[in-house]
C-alpha cells in the first residue's frame, strides 16, 4: 500500500459528519496526537484480555457489546480488563452511541494517556463514515503534470512534455462537449482498494492555460457542464512528438496492453505519437470509446487476431 501522511486526532473532531466529541483530553492535546493508519478496529476480544491482534495505531471502536461484556464482570475483573486493553496505548478509543466511557474507564485512560472520544452515531453507521473519512484524509496523494478530462464518462489522464499540445487538446475536447477536470496540474489521491481520483487544485479550478492567449476560465466561457470537480482516472495517455529516427515501437495492432502506475495502481497506458496536424481530440475520443468497449469485454484486436489465426490455419491446411 502506498505510504500515507499523518493527521491529528483534532481533524476528526473538525468533521461534523462524524458527530465526535472529546471525552478526556482538550483540543490542543488532540492536535498533538497523530493518526497514521486509515484502518479502524472494533475492540471486540481485546477488552476480554486477548490483545494479540490489537493494532495500537488503529482507532479502536468501543460499542454496546464491549460495554455489556464489562457489565458482566466483578469490579476487580472489570478494572483489570480495561487496564490490560488500555495499557497497549491505542491511538484513540471511540465510543459509539449509546455507550459512553464510565468514570473507571476515564480514570484508567488518564493513567495511560489514551484519548477517548464519543460519537452520537451508532457503531454500524459510524464505521462507514469513519472509514470513508480516514481514507480521504490519509489517502496517498501525488501531483502530476497532466490534464484530466472526462471524455464520455471515461477519466483520461493526458501527459506529455511541455509544448506538445496537451492544453489545446483539452480545450478542443471541452468544445466537443467533454469536461475539463484539471489543466496541467492534477492532484491524485489513492482510494483503497484500487481507485485513483484526480482533482484540480482549488487555486486553478476551471482554468486552462493556452499559449498565446493566457488563462481561460472554462466554466465562464463554456458553461457549467464543461467542467468537473473530480474524476476517477481510467486510463493514461502520453503524447510524444513523432520522431522518425526514434526506435520506439508504437502499438500497431492493440493486442499488447501497456500499464502506467500511479501510487501503486496500474491503468491502461497509451503512447500516442503526435505530428503537426494530428487531430488529437478525435484520437482521445476513440481511446475513450475503445476503453468503454474493453470494459464491456469487447476487444477488437483480440477478436481480429483470432479471426486471422483461424484463417491462416485453414489456408495452411490446404
Amino acid at each position, binding site marked *: 500500500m502506498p505510504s500515507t501522511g499523518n493527521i491529528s486526532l483534532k481533524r476528526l473532531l473538525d468533521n461534523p459528519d462524524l458527530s465526535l466529541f472529546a471525552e478526556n483530553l482538550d483540543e490542543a492535546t488532540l492536535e498533538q496526537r497523530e493518526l497514521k493508519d486509515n484502518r479502524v478496529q472494533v475492540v471486540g476480544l481485546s477488552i476480554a484480555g486477548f490483545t494479540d491482534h490489537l493494532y495500537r495505531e488503529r482507532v479502536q471502536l468501543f460499542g454496546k457489546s464491549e460495554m455489556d461484556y464489562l457489565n458482566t464482570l466483578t469490579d476487580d475483573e472489570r478494572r483489570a480488563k480495561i487496564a490490560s486493553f488500555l495499557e497497549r496505548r491505542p491511538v484513540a478509543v471511540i465510543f459509539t452511541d449509546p455507550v459512553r466511557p464510565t468514570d473507571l474507564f476515564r480514570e484508567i485512560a488518564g493513567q495511560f494517556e489514551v484519548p477517548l472520544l464519543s460519537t452520537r452515531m451508532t457503531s454500524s453507521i459510524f464505521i462507514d463514515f469513519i472509514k470513508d473519512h480516514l481514507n480521504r484524509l490519509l489517502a496517498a496523494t501525488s*501531483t502530476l*503534470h497532466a490534464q484530466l478530462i472526462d471524455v464520455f464518462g471515461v477519466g483520461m489522464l493526458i501527459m506529455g512534455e*511541455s*509544448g506538445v499540445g496537451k492544453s489545446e487538446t483539452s480545450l478542443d475536447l471541452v468544445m466537443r462537449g467533454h469536461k475539463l477536470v484539471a*489543466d*496541467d*496540474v492534477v492532484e491524485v489521491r489513492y482510494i483503497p482498494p484500487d481507485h485513483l481520483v484526480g482533482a484540480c*487544485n482549488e*487555486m*486553478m479550478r476551471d*482554468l486552462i*492555460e493556452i499559449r498565446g492567449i493566457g488563462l481561460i476560465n472554462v466554466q465562464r466561457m463554456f458553461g457549467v457542464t464543461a467542467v468537473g470537480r473530480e474524476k476517477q482516472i481510467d486510463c493514461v495517455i502520453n503524447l510524444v512528438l513523432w520522431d522518425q529516427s526514434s526506435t520506439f515501437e508504437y502499438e500497431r495492432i492493440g493486442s499488447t496492453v501497456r500499464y502506467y502506475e500511479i501510487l501503486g495502481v496500474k491503468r491502461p497506458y497509451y503512447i500516442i505519437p503526435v505530428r503537426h496536424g494530428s487531430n488529437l481530440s478525435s484520437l482521445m475520443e476513440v481511446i475513450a470509446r475503445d476503453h468503454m468497449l474493453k470494459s464491456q469485454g469487447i476487444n477488437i484486436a483480440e477478436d481480429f487476431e483470432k479471426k486471422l489465426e483461424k484463417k491462416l490455419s485453414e489456408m495452411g491446411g490446404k
Partner: protein
Amino acid sequence: MMMAERTVTIRNKLGLHARAASMFVKEAERYACEVEMEKSGVRVNAKSIMGILMLAAPFGSTLKLIAKGPGEEECVAALARLVEVGFEEES
C-alpha cells in the same frame, strides 16, 4: 542519476505573483532539461505556469528547484538567480 538541486527563498514582497511566475516559466523553458519546483512537499513542473501559480509561494517561502538532464546546472543556477534578485522588482 545526475541531478541539480537548489533551495531558494522568495525575496520580493509580492511573492510569486502571476507576472513573476510567467517570467520564471519563460526562463525554465529555455533549457532542455526537466525541471521541477517543490514547496512544502508539493512538486510541480517548473515549465508549467499552472503548476507554478498553484504553489502560491508568498514572500519568505522556501522553494526547492530540481533539474535533470542537459543543462541542469545552468538551468537551476539561472532560475535561482531570478528568484534571488526578486524578479528584478524594486522591493
